Each structure stands twice: as structure tokens, then as C-alpha cells.
């Protein structure tokens, strides 16, 4: 006798638009967040009846809102019902992205892929390292589906906007429901609940998107109000399990300085999935990892029907090998980059040779550090021979950013932006340099 029981009242899952079932649990139904790499981190997508919190603490960027726009666009493309709660929802939705015309996936991928993967070119036959021909190719991210027939996750193009007619039609047919954020956040939950209750006979999944929870239009919210809202949202999603939600916080509310000790932890307890997209604020980080714009930290993952999140088993990006009793390695570090056409999350590795930008056969160059600070230090300590610890406590091996004239000219000719000219860098040791100066 099997103790395994299906939910008797649910419809067959392939009927729900834009969703797919989990291979590990028959109860769980995933829907895409619009970003294939984020879906992979979540374990296949955002499960219905779960909520996602995107924390973007950068005050000068809006990565959280970007993720919400993907969420909305994916819902509209898949034919699902989308609720947007914002101060100016029409304006927000009009800026959402759209798949590019023609062949969406292939057109987007050609430009960006050449950025970093110089050595992993797409040769059909590996002639030199033929012993490695059968191994999987090194990949830093999961690819968006190539075929447009797969409607789970679309390949969106950030340069395209939602066509106005589509938007009007969606609003008229109430596929898209725009709600204004008001001071009465408790009343808002009731409004959504009523609307969900009215449409509970439909088989269409419902997405609730709140791009900026706690922005000024919501009134003067206290931390406990935000937590209470999260609690009621979770209750709502449990009551109507064909809905899911995605919420983003304004940057000023994304830290312990606003919410008190343990603020992010409390929020992450009340949301099923919680992810932080933190841009590189330290200039040395952005110089060391020039191809990424920030790091991704995962605080919580949805476990709607099991003890472990599906992502532990199926995520290629996170890379936890979950075969029972296996190696026990940790997770990969994750970083995101936002190019002109897409937003993607990749694994984050130190490059070959401990931080140099590209593989070469010429001698290693200088690794960029705190460029300005180092230059200043260099000038003042030019005549010192000591190889001790520098004033800022830096290690004995001083590094500096040195631009070779030849590369500079080449780069200028090619019109590459200033920051990228540091590609060919050299590492020289302080002792060597001093020696050269003194004529040794």
C-alpha cells in the first residue's frame, strides 16, 4: 500500500499556463521568474503558493525593480494573471521588458557571450586537449531556452518594452490588475484576497508583484507593519495556493539600520525565498571582477512540501552535490551582471592565476587594486627600500596598476571604455621596482 497521496482536488498540472511540475515532489508546481538563472537558483522556478523577496540594498541602482519587471513580463507572456501593487503601477508596467522580435534567444546571446569566454569557443572538435573532449564544457550560467515553443521561461530583451496595445488589452481583459499602493496596507491585503477569492475557479496561476514595498506611497511604515504585511501575504498565499508573490524592498529599508537587529532574518523567515542582489560598492571588487556588477546571496529557498529545498538537488548554479553522502563541498559564489540586453546570474570564480583578467602566455601583469590609493602611496614612498608592511597594512608585495603604453593606444583605437583598458596588467614586486630605479 502506498502512503503517497495526490491532492485529489487539483487539476492536472500541465493545464496550468506557464508552469511545470517538480520532478521531486508531485505537489510542487513551479512558475518562472523570468530569469532563467534565478529559476535555477530557486530550484526550477518559484513554486506556486510561495513568495520571493528580493533585497537590493544599492541606493543608486534598481536591481530589485528589474527582477520584478521580469516577473511581470513573464507572467504576461505566459498568459497568467498578474497583480501589480505600486505607487504608479501603469508607469511601472509600461517600462517592463519584452522578448525581442524574430529569433529571441539567438539574437540576444551572440554579443554577450563573447565578453569573457574567450577560451571556451564553440569549436566542434577539440584537437589539442582531446582527452577532455567528453567532459562537460565549463559554464558559468544556465542558458535560456533556445526554442520559443517552450513557454516556461522567455528570453527577454531589456531594450524592448511592452507594446502599448498588448498592455491595453491585458488591462481590459483583467489579465493585468493594477493596484495603487495606499497607506492602508491591511486593506490592500483584503482587496487582493477578495479578488483572489472571486477568481479561484480559474486555473490560471496568479502572480502578485510588489516592486517597492514601503516606498513613500505606502505611508510611514514601521518594521512591524512590514512584517505584518509579509505575514498576511503568506497567509493569503497559503489560502489560495495557485498564487505566488514577488516583493522587493526599497534600498533604504534593506538593512539592519532601518529594521533593527535581525531585520533581514525576520523578513526571510516570513518569506519563502529570499535573495540579496548587492552591487559591488567597493571599487577594488569591481576591478577584480570586471565582468560582474554585484554579488548574489541566497538567504532562504522555498520548501513548500519537503524539508530540503528543491534547489539543493537540482541547481547547477549553486552546485551543491546532493547525491547522498557525497563530497560535502560548499556552494558556489554567485554574482550577477546586467548587460544592455539581459540580466543574468552566474557563478563567481576567481580567474586563473589568482585574479588576473585573462589567460596568457606572457609574463603576469599587475593586478588592479585600489588604484588611486596605491599611486599616491607609491609617490610618497618612492625612495624607500623597505619591503615591510605599508601604511595601510597592506602586504609586503605592493601591487599597482600600471598601464602599458602600447595597450593603451590599442584600447583607445578600439574605443574600449577606460575601465577595460586595464586588461593587460602586470604584477611587479616592490623590491624589483626599487631595484630597477636604483639601476641594479
Amino acid at each position, binding site marked *: 500500500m502506498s*502512503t*503517497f*497521496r495526490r*491532492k485529489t482536488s487539483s487539476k492536472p498540472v500541465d493545464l496550468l499556463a506557464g508552469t511545470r511540475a517538480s520532478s*521531486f*515532489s508531485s*505537489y510542487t508546481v513551479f512558475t518562472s521568474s523570468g530569469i532563467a538563472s534565478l529559476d535555477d537558483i530557486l530550484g526550477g522556478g518559484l513554486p506556486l*503558493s510561495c513568495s520571493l523577496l528580493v533585497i537590493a540594498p544599492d541606493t543608486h541602482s534598481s536591481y530589485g525593480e528589474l527582477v520584478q519587471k521580469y516577473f511581470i513580463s513573464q507572467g504576461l507572456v505566459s498568459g497568467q494573471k498578474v497583480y501589480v501593487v505600486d505607487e504608479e503601477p501603469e508607469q511601472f508596467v509600461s517600462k517592463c521588458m519584452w522578448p525581442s522580435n524574430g529569433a529571441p534567444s539567438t539574437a540576444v546571446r551572440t554579443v554577450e557571450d563573447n565578453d569573457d569566454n574567450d577560451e571556451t569557443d564553440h569549436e566542434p572538435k577539440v584537437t589539442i586537449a582531446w582527452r577532455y573532449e567528453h567532459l562537460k564544457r565549463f559554464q558559468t550560467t544556465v542558458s535560456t531556452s533556445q526554442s520559443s515553443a517552450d513557454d516556461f521561461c522567455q528570453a527577454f530583451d531589456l531594450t524592448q518594452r511592452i507594446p502599448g496595445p498588448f498592455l491595453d488589452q491585458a488591462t481590459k481583459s483583467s489579465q493585468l490588475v493594477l493596484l495603487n499602493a495606499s497607506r492602508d496596507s491591511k486593506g490592500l491585503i483584503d482587496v487582493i484576497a477578495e479578488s483572489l477569492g472571486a477568481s479561484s475557479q480559474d486555473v490560471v496561476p496568479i502572480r502578485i508583484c510588489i516592486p517597492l514595498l514601503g516606498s513613500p506611497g505606502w505611508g510611514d511604515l514601521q518594521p*512591524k*507593519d512590514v*512584517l*505584518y504585511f509579509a*505575514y*498576511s501575504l*503568506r*497567509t493569503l498565499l*497559503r*489560502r489560495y*495556493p495557485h498564487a505566488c508573490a514577488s516583493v522587493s524592498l526599497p534600498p533604504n529599508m534593506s538593512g539592519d539600520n532601518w529594521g533593527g*537587529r*535581525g*531585520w533581514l*532574518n*525576520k523578513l*526571510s*523567515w*516570513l518569506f519563502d525565498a529570499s535573495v540579496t542582489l548587492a552591487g559591488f560598492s567597493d571599487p577594488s571588487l569591481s576591478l577584480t571582477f570586471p565582468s560582474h556588477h554585484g554579488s548574489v546571496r541566497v*538567504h*532562504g529557498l522555498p*520548501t*513548500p*512540501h*519537503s*524539508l*530540503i529545498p528543491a534547489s*539543493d538537488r537540482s541547481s547547477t548554479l549553486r552546485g*551543491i*552535490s*546532493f547525491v*547522498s*553522502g*557525497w*563530497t*560535502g*563541498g*560548499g*556552494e558556489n559564489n554567485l554574482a550577477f551582471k546586467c548587460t544592455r540586453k539581459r540580466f543574468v546570474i552566474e557563478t563567481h570564480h576567481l580567474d586563473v592565476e589568482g585574479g588576473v583578467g585573462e589567460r596568457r602566455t606572457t609574463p603576469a601583469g599587475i593586478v588592479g587594486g585600489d588604484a588611486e590609493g596605491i599611486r599616491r602611496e607609491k609617490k610618497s614612498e618612492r625612495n624607500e627600500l623597505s619591503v615591510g608592511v605599508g601604511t595601510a597594512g597592506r602586504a609586503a608585495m605592493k601591487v599597482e596598476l600600471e598601464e602599458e603604453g602600447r595597450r593603451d593606444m590599442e584600447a583607445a583605437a578600439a574605443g574600449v571604455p577606460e575601465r577595460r583598458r586595464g586588461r593587460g596588467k602586470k604584477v611587479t614586486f616592490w623590491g624589483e621596482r626599487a631595484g630597477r630605479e636604483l639601476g641594479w
Partner: protein
Amino acid sequence: MSWFSINGLVTSSSPVVITDQLASPADFLLHQLLSEYVKSSPDAKCIIISTAQDLVKWKAISSRSGLNLAQKLEQGSIIFIDVPNQLPDLSLSDGASLLPLLDLIRSCVERQNDAQNTLVIFDELATFEWIGHSALDISRFARALVAYCAKASGEPHPSLAVLQDALLFQGAISLVVRYHIAASGDLDSVLRILLQLSAYHIEVLPLSSGKSGSVSGEIALHAGVALSGKPLRVIPRSQALQYRLGDYHATYFERGTGHAVL
């Protein structure tokens, strides 16, 4: 292979408090406790009070460990109280007290008055504080709940003066309370009071070195203030038992004897 069972620790005199953190949630302990308790005796009764998870998750996980929760719910041997849905007014933070919840729990316990033993699992007390209830209100609720369970079991609680009224109840009520810790290292007032009232404190900790594929976290077991007599088992943090989560249960092993190492 080590074992860890809190079934033996759950006694009728004082509650067991389980604290967990975001990186190491203690859901698996509650599910394990439920399935062990129900399997241990055929007429075991249980009341689950949940603020966080809905019934679907409880059903999904218990079905995999061989417990037919839906059937037990129908029979009435397990009662599930879904706090957000059944008591929506409780969620209003200003001025609302937790008294209705206490009354509901009392009525459910009395409904099972022919039981020998009842297990009460209270999933998650910290949420009330986060959504706005005052710490004073929550600590009063905690004391009242513990006192009620002690009184109904007819056993004197070591740190509460309980009037020995006429016994409502033949069996013993065992209480297990779960508490989320938001800021590690912080002992807030509600938790302090809970620990004073408890016989055992089970701490579910994440690994201090971050996430790992083979170890999901650690468990430490401390004797609480209100424990009368010698503790059955104590696991200090330095020798914490490590566990690894599977689909529906966890496997336990001593530090350094995980599958990856041996």
C-alpha cells in the same frame, strides 16, 4: 549512526523549547517528533498549532514517513490549528491579546479528554512578536500555556505556583514550543522567560563555517531551568550532534563521522 529522538525528552512536567535559526530551520525535528509520538502508542493524541506552515506541508512530509495525517485528522486524534486562518483577528497588532488563542488551545485539549497523553506542538512563538504583539503579552501567554498544561496534567511545575484544582484530565500534556532566533547571540525577553520555564532547550544551529552539502547543521541539547531531577541527555555545543536533511527526515552523526569523511 547516532540517534536523536526528542520523544523521550518530552515529559509532562515542563515544556521543551526548540530554537532555530534561518540557516538551520527545525522543521525536521517537529515532523520527526510527530511521527514518533503517533507511532509510539495507538491512541496518542496530538494538537499542532501552526503559524507558519499549512497543512499541506505537514501532510506531504508525514505521508512520506508513513503517517497518514489526513486520516488522523478525520478521526480527531490529531487536531491542527492554523492560527492565521482560524484566528485572523489575532493578527491585528495593536491591542489584541493572545487570549483567544489560549482559549482555543484549551478547548481543543478538553475535546480530547479521554486521551491518555496529549502532545501539543506550538510552532513558532517569535512571529507574534515580529508582527507587533508586545513582549509582555507574549510572555504572559507563554506562562499561561505552560501553567495550563501543567495543571491539566496534574503535575506540579517546578517554577510555577499552580493551584491543584480538580483534574480536568487523566493523561499528561506534553508541550513543545518552537522559537525562531532572528539575531544570533541575542537573548530577548520572551526567549529568556521561555527558557526559564523549560525542561530542555534544543538548539538547532547552522555550521559556523557556512553551508555544506553533507552537513545541514548541528543540534545542541541543554537542560532547562525548570527541569526537576537529572537530565536524560545533554549535548553541549562543543560536541553538537550534526545532522543532514533528507527529503522527509534527517540523519544524525557525530562531528567528524559524516558520510563524506568516513
